[in-house]
Every structure is written in C-alpha cells, then in structure tokens.
C-alpha cells in the first residue's frame, strides 16, 4: 500500500461520515473487549504470564543476534533454508526468486502482516505470479483491492452485505438464486472456491507468530486452518518473518501463547497452533518439499538500544486497537499505514520515518487503555510521546501547535506574568459567557467550539480569590 499517514486527519474526518464503516466498527467494541476480559478473568495467572512474556522478549532482544544464529543453525539442520533480508526490497526479491525457481504460477498465502509490510502481493503480480489470499478476511479484501484495516481482523471495516456484493461480482459461477445473506453462506462459498486454489498452488507463503531458536521451528497461530493448508499443500513453503519474532525455547513459546489468543480474540487457545520444522521428511506422505525462511529486518535493528526497543516485544494480537477510542471512531484505514491503531502509531514512524507519519503518534488522547491491555506490557503512550519529542526537536511539529505551546510555556514559566495575564483574561472570558455561562463560539478556539460549547470561567481565578480570603483572615485578626 501507498503510505498515506500524512492525510490521517482528512481520512479520519471522512471515516467519521461513512455510515457503513461506522456500523462495522461497532463490531470491534462489541466483540473483542468483553471476550478478552472474560478470558483474562478466567485465568488467575494472566498478569503473571504477561510479566513473564515481557521478560522473555526483553531477554531475547538483549541477545537477538545470538538467538538468530542459533535459530538459523537449527533450521538448516532440519533441511530448511534461511534468507536474510535487510530491507523490504530484499525480502521481495528473495521471495520472488524462490517462487520463480519453483516455476510458480500461483501462490497461496496465509494471513500475514509482514507480507503487507513488504507489499509482496503487488510485486508477485507484477512478475506474473498470482497471489491468492486464503484467510477469509484477507480473501475478501483482496477481492476489493483493499488492504487490511486491522492486524487480526482484516475485513472488520466491512458489513456482510458488502461482502455478498463482492462475491456476486467476482464469483461469476454463482446462480442468482443462491442465498448469500448470512455469513455462514459466504464462508461456505469462499471455502469451496479456495479449496481448489490450495491444490493448484505451487508455493505457500505464511508469516510466523514465533521462531523458536532451540528447534529451528516457525509457529503460526490461526483459527481457520487456511495457513495450514497453505503451507502443507504447496510444493514449497516460504515463511516470511521479522527478526524479533524469535523466542528461545518451546517453554517460552508456551508462556507467550497463553497471553496471545486471550488478548486477541478472547480464546484460551486459537484453534490451530502449528509448529513447522523444515521440509517434508523422507517418509512423510505430505508436506512441502522445500522450506524457506526469509528473515526481515526493515528498520527493526535500528530500534534496538533506543527508546523504541520495547515495541519489538509486540506479538501482533491487536488488543491495543481493539481498546482504542480513536481506532473505534475512525477504523484502521484512516491511519494510512500497514499497521493501524496504537501499535501502528509507534511502529510506523520507526519503519517509515517520522517526517511522513507524525500524525499517527499525535492522534492519541493518551488514555492509556492500550498499555493497560497489552499482553507484552508495551508502554505505547510513552513511546508515542517520544515520537512527539523527536518531531519537536526537529521542528516537524505543526507551526500553530508549536507556537501555541511555546507561548503557553512562556507564561507558565513566569508565575507573576502569568498571574497578571490571567487576572485580565479570565474575567473577560467569564463576561463573554453571559448568563448561560458558556460560549458557543470563540475566535481561535474553533477546534473546541465547532462541536461543543466552551464552559465560561467563574470569573476571578482561584489564586486571586484565595489570596483575598487569606488577606481578609489576616485582617480580621486570625
């Protein structure tokens, strides 16, 4: 996708007026939040597991180079291949090369945000290879030429009648009388169509939730089973994963698995957690003949040792966006970046630079609900604030904001001048409030008064009144 984060404000305003989208976004609040809470409440050790999951990833990040080397050794020992990609472009080239060597015409894909990050589908298409998304949500948005609006529920911005329309447009074999009004009918239709694609595909591409150093294993966590069919039925399985997906051992994987699905969908475990190690063995009746892992850096190594390192603990559960009031209001596409919501507001500037993406870490009320539910205890608001600091240092903060805040600071740092200014200002504002004691509009305060009244101040300031009362007390001999 084309990065459009700088248009966030305009896209958000448009999203707020989109009735279809607003209806669909209601499902985020209705669905995810209560289910997560229920799953967390049912496990007394949930918070202890979160602490431990955080500690495991911190340990990994402090030893990332060593674990990557160990992981690579074990992949190779199991007969797999490891490819290192410094940039998105490198990763695209490597995947294309693997596909071309396999004479691939179509590839199936399991749901993977990392292949969105490297814009793999466009690259394959441009080179004559057809990518087929097999996750139901991904399949739907591929039909629509869109990109995911949520990292675990890519089509959460759509309603079922929109999906029905797309199926009727693309699945031209459908008889007119076929009832597609319910999700279950839509799912059956997709299942039927995609079954054929799995068998026809030459290469299956998946992401990975974890890469286990101890065993050279990649892990995918899914509910539909599409990822498994993708990686089992193709002649070649390609795993594309970023370097921070490493975990040391099977035990460490179990720790994080216990918080992953609960945080994401509120399940104790997702339906399929699949551990893949190398290609088909000599006596295996099924499985891919080749197994490749593409390890992607794409800016992550530069986050290590910085105030953004904690972001590399992220396990892509989506809990932060599920609980974000801004995401609830505008949906994922408004962010104009591959990763939406709070985790995207921190990660996107790291991957794409703050120059084009400054809107994202600013578009937060700092309500802190994202951090409160993050299974990896990532301090998301703190890191968004750090991005605002980088912006401010480099004079990237919008001028009105910058001058406004410097003016405020000028007075705030000079209490006497501040007292003088407010002793004139507040009574005037109070008078303007009149009998209703509120202002319907006010010059330079359009951001406030466009949507709400401005409560008028009471008049004199608290410190003025307090000083007067204290003086009276002194005078009356207290």
């Amino acid at each position, binding site marked *: 996708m084309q990065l459009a984060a700088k248009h966030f404000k305009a896209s958000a305003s448009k999203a707020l007026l989109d009735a279809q989208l607003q209806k669909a976004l209601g499902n985020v609040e209705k669905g995810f939040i209560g289910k997560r809470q229920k799953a967390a409440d049912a496990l007394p050790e949930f918070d202890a597991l979160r602490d431990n999951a955080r500690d495991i990833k911190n340990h990994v990040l402090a030893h990332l180079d060593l674990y990557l080397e160990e992981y690579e050794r074990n992949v190779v020992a199991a007969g797999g291949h490891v490819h*290192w990609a410094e940039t998105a472009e490198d990763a695209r080239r490597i995947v294309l090369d693997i596909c071309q060597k396999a004479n691939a015409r179509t590839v199936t894909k399991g749901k993977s945000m990392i292949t969105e990050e490297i814009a793999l589908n466009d690259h394959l298409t441009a080179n004559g290879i057809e990518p087929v998304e097999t996750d139901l949500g991904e399949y739907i948005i591929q039909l629509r030429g869109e990109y995911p609006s949520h990292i675990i529920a890519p089509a959460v911005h759509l309603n079922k009648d929109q999906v029905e329309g797309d199926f009727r447009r693309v699945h031209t074999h459908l008889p007119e009388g076929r009832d597609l009004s319910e999700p279950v009918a839509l*799912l059956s239709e997709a299942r039927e169509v*995609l079954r054929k694609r799995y068998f026809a595909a030459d290469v299956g591409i998946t992401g990975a939730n974890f890469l286990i150093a101890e065993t050279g294993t990649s892990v995918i966590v899914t509910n539909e089973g599409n990822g498994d069919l993708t990686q089992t039925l193709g002649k070649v399985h390609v795993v594309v994963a970023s370097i921070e997906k490493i975990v040391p051992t099977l*035990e460490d994987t179990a720790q994080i698995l216990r918080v992953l699905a609960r945080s994401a969908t509120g*399940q104790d475990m997702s339906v399929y957690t699949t551990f893949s190690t190398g290609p088909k063995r000599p006596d295996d009746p099924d499985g891919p003949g080749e197994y490749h892992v593409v390890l992607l*850096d794409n800016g992550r190594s530069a986050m290590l040792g910085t105030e953004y390192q904690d972001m590399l603990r992220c396990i892509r559960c989506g809990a932060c966006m599920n609980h974000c009031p801004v995401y609830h209001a505008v949906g994922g596409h408004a962010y104009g970046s591959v990763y939406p919501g709070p985790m995207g507001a921190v990660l996107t500037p790291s991957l794409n630079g703050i120059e084009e993406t400054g809107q994202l870490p600013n578009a937060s009320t700092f309500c802190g609900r994202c951090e409160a539910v993050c299974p990896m205890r990532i301090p998301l608001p703190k890191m968004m604030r750090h991005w605002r600091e980088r912006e401010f240092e480099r004079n990237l903060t919008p001028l009105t904001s910058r001058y406004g805040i410097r003016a405020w600071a000028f007075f705030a740092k000079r209490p006497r001048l501040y007292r003088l200014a407010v002793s004139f200002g507040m009574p005037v504002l109070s008078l303007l409030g009149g009998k209703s004691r509120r202002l319907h509009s006010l010059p330079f305060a359009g951001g406030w008064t466009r949507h709400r009244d401005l409560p008028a101040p009471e008049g004199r300031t608290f410190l003025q009144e307090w000083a007067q009362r204290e003086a009276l007390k002194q005078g009356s001999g207290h």
Partner: protein
Amino acid sequence: MSGRDTVLGKIRASMRVSGPDAERKAAVASRLRDTPTGVIPARADLPAAGQQELFCAMAAQFGASVARVNDYREVAAEVSAYLRAHNLPAEIRIGADPRLKDAGWDLEKNLELRHGASDGGDLAGVSHAMAGIAETGTLALLSGPDNPTTINFLPEHHIVVLRESDIKGDMESVWAMLREQKGKGVMPRALNLVTGPSRSGDIEQTIILGAHGPRALHIVVVA
C-alpha cells in the same frame, strides 16, 4: 557483504556489542540448555483423573465432541456410530498409526478405510494424537506416515483418537514428552496443536465453525 552479515552487524552495532561477548553467550547457552518453565496455570494441576475430566470439559467448551471408550477394540464402533449419526458415508481416511491397527475395524464390515494422505475428497478422517492438554482441551498431533497432516485439515469431520494416559496438564508436559520421544531440540516436521473445530469470525465478528479446516472435531478418548 551478505544480507546475513549486514543484519547481524546492524543488530550488534545498535546494541553496542563487540569482543568475545562471553557473558551474553553463556546466558543464551544456559537458557537453551535448561529450558526454564515460567508460569504454569494451576488450573490443570490435578491428579490424572482430574486432568482427563478437565481435558474433556475444555475440549467440549471449545466446540469439540468427546466420547470415551474402554479399549482400542471399541474405536471402530465409535467411529461408525459417529458417521451414522452425522449421515456420513461409511468411509474414512486414516494413516498408518500402529496404535490404530487393531482398533476393531474387523468388527465394522461396512466401514471403508482409505490409507495415506488426504487428497481433499474425504468427508471424514481419523488420526491418533500424541497427547491431550487439559489446560485448554487441546490436542497435539505429529506429522508423519502414521498421521498425515492433511487428515487434520482437509476432511469435513476430524475424528481424533487419544489415549487417556496421554492427557497431560499443560503444554510444558507435552514438550517433555516430545523431548523424550524425539530427543532434545528435535521436532517432527509438523506439530499441530488443535483446539476445537476450524472457525472464522471475519464477517461481522460472527463466529462460524468450519472455515477452511474441519467443520467438526470428534475426540475419542481410550481408557
């Protein structure tokens, strides 16, 4: 420079590591050697019978059906009964698991067994699980000729046989079993942890069973 050297070099530069780096290497070696367990939920810290009960209850909660039989010889009858109850033809896809060799197939004359990997044309498949995890009602299935992975995903109905004594409390106990069977650091090509039948919530967050994998999961626990 290769991509490998570039990426590893950038990581080390960001972390400002250089030299022999013995301390970090030792930390990594010890974690890989000792594989420390972290927090294990008390939920499944039960005697064997309690774990078995919890497994069945959790599996049912996540949408599987569970039957218990007393002996391997009763498995075939249970499979036949399941197929009949679901109006399915008397045919199954099955691997070469020796534990299922003598599962009473001879008593079910009408039942047709197709061996090997699934080709997508099977309505029902039968596998034998390595273990069950009581904590979440999860099955652990290993790839190989005994239990081809395709049987776990292609048939509409997946019937999984599980030995009662292979029901463990938690994932960590299954890792221990795996290491004992295969050796430390050695994994089968695929280990599938399966918790309930396939599902999707991608359309309006409505959960529907039977996405790309099996629509139904039936577990047969053998005493």
